[in-house]
């Protein structure tokens, strides 16, 4: 470490031009478009005072929305952890016709506009839809129920898990597995004791990314959710509802809370990714 920092200190200043211009433009643009607008949320919220914030977020309707959003997002993250692992494993480990096509298909939830995904899922799972018509007689209500929200949140989060696990799985050394097998481990033992442990950081990172995306998701959820206050109303929708009812204080307080949570999740995923790449490079 010591030699590295000495080298950086000794290195002459860059002779490349354009430092002032590029950094100046970067910081100004970032400030005007992102930082100042985001700060507004906190400025407006602090104007409410503690009592005002508490009043805005402690209603039954808000609490129900938070429970629903965070509960279902966590569940979607967990489902994606399992399904995303399966998909990544199959794509990396096995060779079969159509593998590259399937690999590209994983990115569909990133590529499709959220509103389009929302109406497609709703049409499929509505009581008279392609899947809904078979599920409704069984007493399973997907669209316009919490299950539908879970479905949409799982849909948009899947690529995060697959794309986080894939590179780690690709870099695993087959030599370790061969050693375990030659020392008499069964395939199951090899998997759980040799293959799986190095993947844990990537699995947690991917699921957290999926969770973080899910709590803020709006477009793919509003169509399928049914949007019943207290039952199938998610936090982002509640923010819009409050805004449309000119309850700016309520909307801003909720937005500030969501922002704080998003920033914390960003910090967590960043350190998880560092942990993951450290484990990975060992």
């Amino acid at each position: 470490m010591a030699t590295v920092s000495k080298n950086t200190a000794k290195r002459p200043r860059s002779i490349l031009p354009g430092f002032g211009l590029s950094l100046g433009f970067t910081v100004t643009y970032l400030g005007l478009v992102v930082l100042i607008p985001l700060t507004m949320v906190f400025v407006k919220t602090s104007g409410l005072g503690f009592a005002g914030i508490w009043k805005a977020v402690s209603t039954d309707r808000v609490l129900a929305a938070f429970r629903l959003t965070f509960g279902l997002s966590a569940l979607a993250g967990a489902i994606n952890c399992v399904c995303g692992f399966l998909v990544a494993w199959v794509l990396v480990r096995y060779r079969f016709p159509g593998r590259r096509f399937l690999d590209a298909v994983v990115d569909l939830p990133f590529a499709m506009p959220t509103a389009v995904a929302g109406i497609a899922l709703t049409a499929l799972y509505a009581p008279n839809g392609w899947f809904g018509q078979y599920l409704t007689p069984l007493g399973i209500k997907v669209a316009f129920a919490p299950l539908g929200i879970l479905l949409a949140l799982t849909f948009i989060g899947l690529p995060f898990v697959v794309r986080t696990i894939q590179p780690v799985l690709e870099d695993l050394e087959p030599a370790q597995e061969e050693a375990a097998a030659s020392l008499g481990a069964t395939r199951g033992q090899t998997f759980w004791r040799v293959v799986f442990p190095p993947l844990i950081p990537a699995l947690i990172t991917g699921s957290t990314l999926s969770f973080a995306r899910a709590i803020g998701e709006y477009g793919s959820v509003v169509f399928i959710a049914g949007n019943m206050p207290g039952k199938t109303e998610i936090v982002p929708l509640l923010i819009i509802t409050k805004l449309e009812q000119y309850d700016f204080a309520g909307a801003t307080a909720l937005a500030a809370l969501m922002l704080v949570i998003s920033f914390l999740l960003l910090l967590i995923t960043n350190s998880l990714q560092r942990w993951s790449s450290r484990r990975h490079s060992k």
Partner: protein
Amino acid sequence: MKTPSRSVQDPLWAQTLLIGAAVSFLGLFLLVPLASIFVEAFRKGIAVYFSALTEDNARAAIVLTLTVAAIAVPFNALFGVAASWAIAKFQFKGKSLLLALIDLPFAVSPVVSGLVYVLLFGAKGVFGPWLKAHDIHIIFAVPGMVLATIFVTFPFVARELIPLMQAQGSDEEYAALSLGASGWQTFRRVTLPNIKWALFYGIILCNARAMGEFGAVSVVSGHIRGETNTLPLHVEVLYNEYNFAAAFACASMLSLLGLLTLCLKTLIEWRAGLRRHNH
């Protein structure tokens, strides 16, 4: 991946089972919804499909979507190039903070991204009274939608360029400068050819999100038909009016855009060997 020896290969029955499970999961979960959009769009025939896309409000929505993207994407591309030049070619204090701040918009809910501009420029916002006095419309008008779109697509280009330019280093630029090229010539003839694929990759991802954005734009749009509805918002209006064939017809246009983006992205990944990112 290195090919594993026979001793660590899963038995054929396990491979078949797992491949079958993954294929049916992806098929039912991702491909069927995609297919359903096109089936629903053509359910009432080709004539209804094309009239849904050519009626006045749909045409206005398409034009607005293209306009918003045509303003937002170049701005963010320019920002991406400037930010990656500053970050990859120079050492300065606070660089890691700057990197983290550039990623910030991806962490923010689209709804909140729209809300921040309402707080600034809305009727009750900070600049609201001033804007009203000067008869300038930002919220419930095109400028607000452009701003919200810029916000949600902010990091796309920068995120592709920064790691690539950091990995490439500055040796080629030093060589060009020492041979007498000007700064601008160096950028245009040396740096730009080196980053062109990553730049293109960032721009198509940025563009896809810009044209497909729903939540943020919905907050600032005001939903005035034929005036402030982009194509995704137009889809919502049609869907809520139970005009399903038309809603899915417009949705199919957006799906085609998504598919085109996916194809280009996959092509570039194969061609340039770019690594994948999450966003």
